[in-house]
């Protein structure tokens, strides 16, 4: 049997991308899975088939607390980004009527996301520090007598920075699905006597659900794997799985870090599949 060009063509075209992702994503993750069963004797790792790394994680209360804390960050950041992103996307999609201005405001929202995350975290220092603007404001309003220490290097700072970094990943998919809603549907509903909130509840919310789902996947997975923001904004005080893995790598405990990474991956994928059950991704492009 001869392979003909037309049937071979798509495979050749997708080959470079697939090879790159296999080499730098799938094989490395396979390595992590293998190493997670290895042993660590205090200074080096050696090949083995040991469940000890997993056992030590599942029996430790510290890890349980770390995971719970990670879920807490993910849940709060998810909720806050959704509450901010939906009205913003709605405003851009429905309240701005000229395409020109729509593009302008949308681009204005996206520009900060093309700059460095590290810098965008550092930029909070003038606001949150002990002598920062927020403390000065609260002091001058008489709301507090002493400057608050907890503004910077706290869970609050972590969540604020994460929302600041990731809110766009919620806005774009919601905006995208709002823009696809056929405007005639809304006109028809209004002609049939639907009130504003009814249009929102019966038409706009259900039709934008896929956008919400995609945004949620982005935000939740990014927060679940976070370590930089948590390290920087909590001053190293908050705990999260990604940060724990980072620290274990720092002390060369690769097998333990690998076991943690496998668990983190399984947890993250479970969350994603849970969200994916509600939408068909390919229709959204």
């Amino acid at each position, binding site marked *: 049997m001869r392979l003909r060009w037309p049937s071979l063509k798509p495979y050749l075209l997708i080959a470079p991308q697939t090879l790159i992702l296999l080499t730098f994503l799938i094989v490395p993750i396979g390595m992590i899975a293998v190493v997670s069963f290895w042993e660590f004797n205090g200074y080096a790792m050696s090949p083995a088939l040991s469940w000890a790394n997993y056992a030590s994680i599942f029996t430790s209360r510290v890890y349980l607390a770390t995971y719970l804390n990670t879920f807490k960050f993910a849940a709060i950041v998810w909720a806050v980004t959704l509450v901010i992103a939906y009205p913003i996307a709605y405003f851009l999609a429905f309240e701005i009527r000229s395409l020109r201005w729509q593009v302008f405001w949308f681009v204005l929202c996206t520009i900060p996301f093309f700059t460095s995350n590290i810098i965008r975290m550092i930029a909070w220092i003038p606001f949150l520090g002990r002598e920062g603007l927020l403390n000065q404001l609260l002091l001058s309003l008489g709301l507090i007598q002493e400057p608050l220490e907890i503004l910077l290097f706290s869970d609050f700072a972590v969540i604020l920075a994460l929302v600041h970094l990731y809110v766009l990943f919620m806005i774009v998919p919601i905006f995208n699905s709002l823009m696809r809603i056929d405007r005639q549907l809304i006109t028809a509903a209004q002609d049939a006597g639907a009130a504003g909130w009814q249009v929102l509840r019966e038409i706009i919310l259900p039709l934008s659900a896929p956008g919400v789902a995609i945004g949620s996947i982005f935000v939740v997975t990014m927060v679940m794997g976070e370590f930089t923001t948590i390290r920087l904004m909590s001053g190293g005080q908050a705990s999260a799985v990604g940060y724990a893995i980072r620290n274990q790598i720092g002390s060369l405990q690769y097998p333990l870090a690998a076991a943690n990474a496998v668990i983190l991956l399984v947890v993250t994928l479970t969350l994603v599949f849970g969200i994916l059950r509600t939408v068909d991704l390919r229709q959204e*492009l």
Partner: protein
Amino acid sequence: MTPKRSLSFYILATFFGLFLLFLYGPIAAMMLLSLQGPEGSLTFPMQGWSFHWLQAVFQPQRVGEFVSPFWRSLTLGLVIMGVSVVVSVLAGLGFRQRFRGAQGVFYLAIASLIVPSILVSLGIGLFFERLGWSVQWYNSALGGHLTWTLPFAFLIMVGVFNRFNPVYEAAARDLGASDFQTFWQVVLPLIAPNLIGVAMLSFTLSYDEFNRTSLISGEHNTLPLEIFGMTTNVTSPAIYALGTLTTVFSFVVVGGAIALWRWSDRRQSES
């Protein structure tokens, strides 16, 4: 006549304004503080005005040096940009036909986006160690960056080709053009404005990437890694100055891409 604005417009517009303040406020404050005099500190009020700190960035520092990490990040970003554009256009073209395994290719790209970044870093590190290769910004970090930029580029290209009107290609073929000619003379000019977007996105994602690079850049840091190292031990506006400069650089890149896009868009609608 446009109908009168409703109350919800004003409420949402206020909210939107506050949101923009939230987005840009910290960056603006950082930029202002980087213009302080030599006595400047990390917080307001401003201690005089000068370019002292901005100039200091270009001098060798106590805590590190930023000129060569910048060139490294720039080079890496440009390479990533080229690879991402070419590879994602090929994959996007391949994806227009139905073929067995298409679903798998699609989910591989999605997986690459949603896998926690630290797994990419750790995995590539372990992989290189097994092979006995040393990790460097131009091999392992390059791979790590591609796992982040390629899926975005690919998803955009799939979206672009979903909306692409096949009539143009059919016309070219009817006139006797080969596959390659059709692509080069018909398809490529039509998707060119989208490619500018993909190129800019790939470059900036790579230029600012930290998480997937942090463990695998080898002994020579990329710029974000150098900046992160600085956060732990610098307490002067020098760090704001560095932030200001890289942010301005990013703005220039984005602005340039937008200008280029508008230009190519206009040229297309004229011809």
